[in-house]
């Protein structure tokens, strides 16, 4: 399956926020109790029940006003820190490049929330939506975020936010095609918006939600060069009992069947290389780069070391669990 993506065009967005509502409607997420904070923007942050929101930024340059509307939701990174830091392998890269959550595996440690450079995953009640309530384990906090409408995609539909967008500011399709579209759009608006750029083509080795920006990313509320802070290893002695038991009883496989060990516990992210030369195809800077890519060798090194660490860690943790069970 080809990699899929959403292309969000800030020049087209009219901030009607139908996408915000469509997301809640599809996932049956409850409304939040909000107040007017002197802005149209609401809710103020992403939460377990708000996976997609719009930022409103007023700017004034030489007396000329602009009002920027920018999507805030999971970016579905190719190098997703939420996947790396998850001690229970509850995150998965889907074949289409999106990052999903297996909430049955989620123990609510909050590391994804802590380390995501986009502040996308947020913990919340396990039964916040009746449609996706967690059944395994004890009632607890689990992580929520946009999962690129995994179920809709499986049925051949587009994500609910894309489906509802009246002016066509959100497009869904093959990532490669959308990169080309995004670049063409940036070129078309350069005269009016000299700082325009396509965000997400290379950031974190390629995002699966890309933005056509009018201004510099920071003005839109996005990290200029998303990096990941240093993070500690998870202390495996603090796994909750239900999780340890579920793994021991075989209710949860110790390792998700479709996951790859090298996804997890990657070392701190290496700064993203400069955008590739135009001679290279658009898909060069993903987590598994093509053989012609100059940065390949550094990535290969990262992969080998990371993979080894992850496998070693998994084995170590299994042993730890056995010990736990014994006691």
């Amino acid at each position: 399956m080809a990699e899929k993506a959403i292309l969000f065009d800030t020049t087209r967005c009219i901030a009607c926020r139908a996408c915000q509502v469509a997301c809640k409607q599809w996932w049956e997420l409850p409304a939040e109790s909000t107040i007017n904070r002197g802005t149209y923007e609401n809710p103020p942050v992403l939460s377990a029940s708000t996976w997609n929101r719009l930022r409103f930024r007023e700017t004034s340059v030489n007396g000329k006003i602009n009002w920027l509307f920018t999507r805030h939701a999971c970016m579905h990174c190719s190098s997703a820190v939420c996947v790396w830091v998850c001690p229970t392998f509850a995150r998965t890269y889907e074949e289409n490049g999106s990052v999903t959550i297996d909430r049955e595996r989620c123990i609510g440690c909050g590391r994804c929330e802590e380390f995501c450079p986009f502040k996308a995953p947020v913990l919340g009640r396990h039964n916040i939506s009746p449609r996706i309530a967690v059944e395994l384990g004890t009632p607890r906090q689990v992580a929520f975020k946009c999962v690129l409408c995994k179920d809709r995609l499986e049925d051949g539909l587009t994500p609910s936010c894309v489906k509802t967008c009246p002016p066509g500011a959100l497009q869904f399709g093959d990532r490669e095609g959308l990169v080309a579209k995004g670049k063409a759009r940036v070129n078309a608006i350069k005269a009016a918006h000299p700082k325009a750029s396509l965000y997400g083509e290379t950031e974190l080795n390629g995002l699966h939600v890309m933005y056509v920006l009018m201004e510099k990313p920071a003005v839109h509320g996005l990290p200029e060069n998303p990096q990941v802070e240093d993070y500690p290893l998870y202390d495996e002695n603090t796994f909750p009992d239900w999780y340890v038991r579920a793994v021991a009883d075989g209710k949860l496989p110790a390792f998700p069947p479709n996951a790859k060990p090298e996804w997890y516990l990657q070392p701190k992210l290496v700064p993203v290389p400069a955008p590739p030369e135009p001679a290279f195809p658009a898909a060069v800077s993903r987590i598994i780069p093509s053989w012609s890519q100059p940065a390949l060798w550094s990535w290969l090194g990262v992969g080998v070391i990371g993979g080894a660490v992850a496998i070693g860690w998994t084995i170590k943790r299994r042993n730890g669990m056995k010990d736990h069970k014994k006691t």
Partner: protein
Amino acid sequence: MTNHWSDIGNADVIFIMGSNAAENHPISFYWVTKAMEKGAVLIHVDPRFTRTSAKANIYAPIRPGTDIAFLGGMVKYIVEDIEKNPQNYNMEYLREYSNAGWLINTKYSFSDGLFSGYDASTRSYKDKSGWQYQPDDKGIPKLDRTFADPSCVFQLLKKHYARYDLSTVSRVTGTSENMLVEVYQAFALSGRKDRAGTILYAMGTTQHTVGSQNVRAYAIIQLLLANVGIAGGGINALRGESNVQGATDHALLFQYIPGYLPIQSTAHPTLAKYLESITTKTSDPRSGNWKQHQPKYAVSLLKAWYGAAATKDNEFGYQYLPKIQAGGNYSFIALFEAMDKGIVKGLLALGQNPAVGGPNSNAERKALEKLDWLVDVDLWETETAAFWKRPGVDPKTIKTEVFLLPACASYEKEGSVSNSGRWAQWRYKAIDPPGDAEDDLWIMAHMMSKVRELYAREGGPNADAITKLTWDYGEHPDPNRVAKEINGYDLNTGKLMTNFLTLKDDGTTSSGNWLYCGSYNETGNLMARRDPKDNSTIGLYSNWAWCWPVNRRIIYNRASVDLTGNPFDPKRPVVKWDAASKKWTGDVIDGFGTRGPDLYPFIMLPEGAARLFGMGMADGPFPEHYEPWETPAKNVFSNIQFNPAARVWRPQEQGTPDKFPYVATTYRVSEHWQAGAMTRNLPWLVELMPEMFVEIDEELAAEKGIENASRVVVEGARGQINAVAMVTKRLKPMLIDGKVVHTIGLPWHYGYMGLATGDSANILTAYIGDANTTIPEYKAFLVNIRRA
């Protein structure tokens, strides 16, 4: 709309004024965006920088209530440019299709803000004899197509707007002269034959004491630029409700009966008199004069209403119809004043929430207390339904008996909805309604059946009007049956009418609304068509749904071709005349299919030419700037401060700038719908816009010590409200005639019921109406603001 939604995609210049299309008609931006990505320029003129402004190439701020000054300046700019650079304009269109060259009676005059014929005692233009054409000896208006005659409309127009120079317009509107020129230039470029410019407007244009004249100003500009009748052009009203077009077509307004036939009044005691009054005449062979056919539509309407009881001998039941007092006003404010005076004793409010949506809400809520009964039909218990237990009122003191009938939402019933582009689209029931909710058709049919039973049993004044009515919809009324009745029948054959061309005035045909005749004929329900294929090159989508009249997607389309019948713009052909076969191709031609391009294109007018000079208006043939009822400024164009023909109900309730120095305007946001019943009860939408707020500029906030997100009190001559302050860069103080003027913005969605409650902005608005329509002046009034 003269055109339709998808046609916006054909425009080269999109001029949005008095509308926040991006927020209130988000889907319009599907087409606006399409046009812009082909290179179209978007201009937005509005007191506030909104989500529409954020998408515009050019945004021009304007003081609320000064649209005519702004547009008058544009008329002057274009007229002067036409004289200097006629090659940049479609002179053939102006000469042949507008009344620019028609000569006006020499009695016509305009001086110091007043047109000829004004009568101060009745606040009206009693003598409009000067506002007429000069007829020749055959009764045909005289013409000077060189525009040299000082009595011709072009010269009168030029003279009228000579006063609207940039400096004066800027003093009045607060828009800088540079910005005015930028806007004028950009839109005037659409005057070229190969370019199209569209105007989109909404209630920011109409809800003024000069609202109708604001629209007239658009008409003048679009005629000067030859933009009416063409693809990507037109004057396009973005209607405020999904079916407000349909409601208006079916006589929502008191001046009309269905199909915009004028209402019968005491001036028309007989059918013959009424029919005579609605039959326009011309002796000009080049004029089609469509309204000569109106008697056929009126008699067919009577046959639809009274069936067999409508006969030639009883004037087809004309005497059953109630007649308004000639010259009487039965508009919204007038009705509430009648309730307040105890003249109107009962109110049936269907999907309407006047306690929030009406002007001067405190007065309207009080007027409801005087009613004997109120029937409220809605999805929720609205502020209107709950007026008797509103904050600050003791329910024991209110005697009104209130009935709340639960109604179906749109997805819970079948029927047609007519959108702004006049497309009647059939939709089906998706789910069953909750509880005892019923659809409007069921409610109306059963209510009327009960009323008929009462009249049949007990009699009463003019009981026949009700008992003789065709009303046999049964227990479960079928919307298809009603749609067929609206379409009409050939009563001799029992077959559905094909279209209105064969309606007759002899009682052998019926039609509930001639405009919809052809929507549901023997070929089936054309409103239910769903063919997304476009057989034109300009996105007519003629087999998608059905459009009145006779599925014509762009009205006045005869004006899109030259005198030989070839499109002015071959890239965007709407229609084309084939002289050999004597046939039109393209969109359904505007009337008289066998008549070639020699026919004047504006067939709804007896003279056939579009009116730069509008003799039908109540307040002058040319739009003239007057200040709003409440204003911080003196009118610099004349000594007439306020529209001399506007309707004033409570003159004592006028706010003055010494007490209320700030201009306020009301508006809607994407997240809420009208008076809020449907959206303030929906948690997902409440989350987005939870509270009543007021937008103010940073300078005013600093001056008043108001912090962003703090609570403020906004007060006016009629009441005060509490709201959250939203301090924003998107509003800026303006220099008006040398004085700094601040404008504040108030959404009008909130009230005391539902999940999101807040004070209603309309507590502050006045009982004051436009001269032609009496629409309230919601968009410009005075307030003061302070920290709560």
